[in-house]
């Protein structure tokens, strides 16, 4: 009886805790937006964060984009040539990268490379009571710490996704045209005929902006909300990576069903 009761209590506690944190995160987003004016006036703070979350993520984004493109080129050609349409390789590579793989994989990499770093940094600031000290000195920690990190991520993410997609298409071209020998003209012209700027590319960019907002908010919030202990920081980082990945995949499904709902 007692076991059941405690299990029941634990589930209830988890639910209220989750709702509580969701509400706090929403209020946190509101506060970040409210104090953004203050922190954008000191724009070098945001530029610093673009450097940390964007520039330092470039290497992993470029390399993994290239490899994803190489794999898409190999696998796509292998499947397409069974139907005698190896020339359509460019279409396959470009559409799958611009619509899905670009924003999603770049988002996942961004969450684990930059999001976790932001959480660790903010969490350690909280643990060493730097945030409280700022408050004491009448420096608003949300305007000084949270907002620049948030905006840095939101600006860096679409750029990273675009670089990822471009590198992926380059990888597909490398395998398809240079190694396998698909006709270069067919590769590019069929790609250009099939990929629409507004429908495919712009929707991909919108996706990456949404993922950027989600990942940055989760990263900053988890750092800000962590238990001020060593274990608390490590848990917050884990939560950042896990919930960012879940948020990206769930949001991707929602956005895809809005943007590319099957025709007719």
């Amino acid at each position, binding site marked *: 009886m007692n076991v059941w009761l405690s299990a029941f209590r634990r589930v209830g506690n988890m639910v209220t805790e989750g709702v509580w944190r969701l509400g706090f995160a929403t209020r946190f987003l509101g506060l970040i937006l409210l104090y953004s004016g203050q922190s954008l006036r000191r724009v*070098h703070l945001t*530029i*610093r964060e*673009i*450097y940390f979350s*964007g*520039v330092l993520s*470039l290497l992993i984004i470029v390399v993994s984009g290239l490899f994803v493109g190489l794999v898409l080129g190999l696998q796509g050609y292998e499947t397409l040539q069974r139907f005698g349409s190896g020339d359509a390789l460019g279409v396959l590579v*470009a559409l799958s990268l*611009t619509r899905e793989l670009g924003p999603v994989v770049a988002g996942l990499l961004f969450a684990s490379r930059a999001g976790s770093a932001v959480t660790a940094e903010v969490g350690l600031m909280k643990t060493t009571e730097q945030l409280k000290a700022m408050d004491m000195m009448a420096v608003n920690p949300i305007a000084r710490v949270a907002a620049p990190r948030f905006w840095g991520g939101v600006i*860096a993410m*679409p*750029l*990273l996704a*675009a*670089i990822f*997609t*471009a*590198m992926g*298409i380059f990888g597909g071209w490398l395998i398809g045209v240079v190694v396998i020998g698909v006709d270069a003209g067919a590769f*590019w012209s069929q*790609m*250009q*005929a099939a*990929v*629409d*700027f*507004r*429908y*495919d*590319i712009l929707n991909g*960019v919108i996706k990456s902006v949404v993922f950027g907002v989600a990942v940055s908010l989760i990263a900053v919030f988890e750092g800000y909300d962590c238990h001020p202990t060593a274990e608390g920081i490590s848990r917050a980082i884990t939560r950042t990576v896990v919930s960012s990945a879940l948020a990206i995949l769930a949001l991707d499904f929602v956005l895809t069903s809005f943007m590319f709902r099957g*025709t*007719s």
Partner: protein
Amino acid sequence: MSRTTLDIWVGIFVLVGIGALFFLALRVGNVSSVDLTDAYTVRGQFDNIGGLKVRAPVKSAGVVVGRVNDIRFDTNSYRAVVEMSIAREFEFPRDTIASILTSGLLGEQYIGLDPGGDVENLQNGDMLQITQSAIVLEKLIGQFLFDRAAADKD
């Protein structure tokens, strides 16, 4: 506030990112070959639209002049009503024939417009009078077998 080495890296990063976007826009995608912001819509009734989809191209002489907006089923005539928007710059006579064609053997289906000889042009909201349905492969094969059987009997 002075410039730092960090700024140049951020500058390079932003440039590369915007460059990648331009590469995607110019080299990978096409900024819709027809501009449909200024367009007029016409409708046509078809007995069978085959695999025609919304957003399929509307072509005349092989050039894309518009897109399919909407496909509905008309319960009065039991036919499919296809609504398409055509860019304002392309005008067609009122007796234009719309037919559903396939690009290549297994390619996507599109609407082909064959201009007629009427002096008046199509207006927004007009109904195309003469249409030609999609060719359904099964029916074609059925017809062929039927004709062969009839021929063998003779």
